């Protein structure tokens, strides 16, 4: 049984079929990448998976459960985390607060115990902090802990997006263009981190990417999309040399 499967999902935006009958399955422990020209519907698929949009057809299955109509705030608790292409961090909060917020899905305290800040809440806060610190260590964000996000450079924000998603302790991690806006060095770091996430943390990664070097370096399987429809699926080399894919990217 695949960890995640999309079966014939589709969505229209006012007449334009952004996603048109896409099916794919992601196996546990692999790095699966979706590629395609701009406007192919890649981020839309992520938005469908995060339940920000509703799919008009088909099903989404996660760990054998049908999650097609699950409300968006329950997705994190199921074990799916995502990063956003254009960075949706909490700008006026510190990096630490952003990461601690990601632990919300694992929150066990209720309003009343928090109101009085009972010792149990204090203990749980320390536990959350310890979990967050592990991720900070993993991604080398120690020096930015208390900085407000508004004051951080772009590269650090991208990493913070990743850190925040990791703090939810996901089983499936959706990365939306993790290397966009990063220079060569930062992209290399990102590649190593994705490999570490897969091997050390055992998290399955579903990625949208444009940078072919990164895609070839880390992906196990690739799906190519164009105009919301699948073009080819296979290993990175197979897909990159597929004639349809080349036509989509180079035109003609």
């Amino acid at each position, binding site marked *: 049984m695949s960890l995640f499967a999309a079966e014939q999902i589709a969505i229209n935006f006012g007449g334009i079929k952004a996603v048109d009958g896409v099916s794919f399955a992601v196996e546990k422990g692999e790095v699966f990448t979706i590629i395609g020209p701009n406007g192919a519907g890649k981020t839309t698929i992520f*938005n469908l998976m995060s339940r920000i949009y509703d799919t008009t057809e088909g099903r989404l299955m996660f760990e054998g459960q049908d999650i097609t109509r699950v409300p968006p705030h329950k997705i994190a608790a199921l074990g799916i985390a995502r990063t956003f292409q254009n960075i949706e961090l909490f700008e006026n909060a510190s990096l630490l607060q952003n990461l601690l917020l990601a632990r919300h899905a694992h929150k066990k305290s209720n309003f009343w115990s928090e109101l009085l800040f009972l010792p149990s809440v204090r203990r749980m806060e320390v536990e959350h902090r310890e979990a967050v610190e592990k991720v900070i260590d993993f991604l080398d964000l120690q020096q930015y802990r208390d900085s407000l996000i508004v004051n951080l450079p772009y590269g650090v924000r991208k990493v913070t997006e990743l850190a925040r998603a990791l703090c939810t302790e996901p089983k499936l991690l959706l990365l939306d263009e993790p290397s966009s806006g990063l220079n060569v060095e930062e992209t290399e770091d990102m590649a190593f981190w994705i490999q570490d996430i897969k091997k050390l943390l055992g998290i399955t990664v579903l990625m949208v990417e444009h940078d072919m070097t990164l895609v070839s370096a880390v992906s196990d399987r690739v799906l190519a999309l164009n105009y919301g429809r699948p073009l080819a699926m296979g290993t990175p080399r197979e897909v990159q040399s597929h004639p349809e894919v080349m036509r989509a990217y180079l035109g003609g």
Partner: protein
Amino acid sequence: MERSGVRSLDSRVRKLINFLQLTLNGLAVGCIYGLVALGFVLIYKATELVNFAQGDLLMLGAFVAYMAVVWWGLDYWLGFVIAIIAIAVFGALLDALILRRVIGQPQFAVVMLTIGLGAMFRTFASVTWGSEIYTLPTPFGGVWQVGGVTVSHQYVSIIVGTLVLCGALYAFFNFTRIGVAMQATSQNQLAAYYMGIPVKRIFSLIWAISAGVATVAGVLLAPVTLIDINMGLAVSLKAFAAAVLGGFGSIPGALVGGIVIGLIELYSGATLPEGLKNTMPYIVLLVVLAVRPQGLFGTLGRKKV
């Protein structure tokens, strides 16, 4: 048998006349709300700022017209024009000198800024012109009797004035270069910059137009409610409800919203008991928002991630 028939016909005709009367008055009042709401929406569409001082600009416009006509003895129409120009220039200066400095701050802070400005305007009016109630002499003193309906010239002037103004604005926005440039700026500021449109000057111009519209509303309203420093406040609230009802960001919506609020106000004033009379417009607003959170003509969007 016959007499009761005649009597019931009489009462039905009377009810119809009453209804028409209320409708006329409601339309007139609604036009005022619509004009102020229009001012809100114009500024919001372009700059995403909500100008809570719009009602106070209305008040300043009315006072300037009063000063021109009563203090300086000028002709009504000349005073009207002077008021429009003066307040339009004032609006443009407000934008250029004050509002431009707060770009980048959260919307809420700017809303509070305009609220503060409004309070300052009221105090300024109180010091300059006085805190009493003043009358503006107008050439619309009479009434026509149409059927049994008393059609006051004031109310007709309001409706006609609104139509003329809206027609002029429509022509301006759709058929002049500046107007089209304004539309472009409000849709995509960055692209407008790239096209060589002087965005900052356009914003000041929009403020000027908005202030001018408020002045027209003020001068048209002056004979009906009389001029005092709080006349803007009273209108603001309902005009806001009108703008939101119509869908903030829709110009025709603002007018429709205004008219709806005006009509509701008049109809409920005549038919409903004391408690519901004043609050009916707000109840209707809440019901509409509950069903359509974006107002009648607004668009519901969500952030594209």
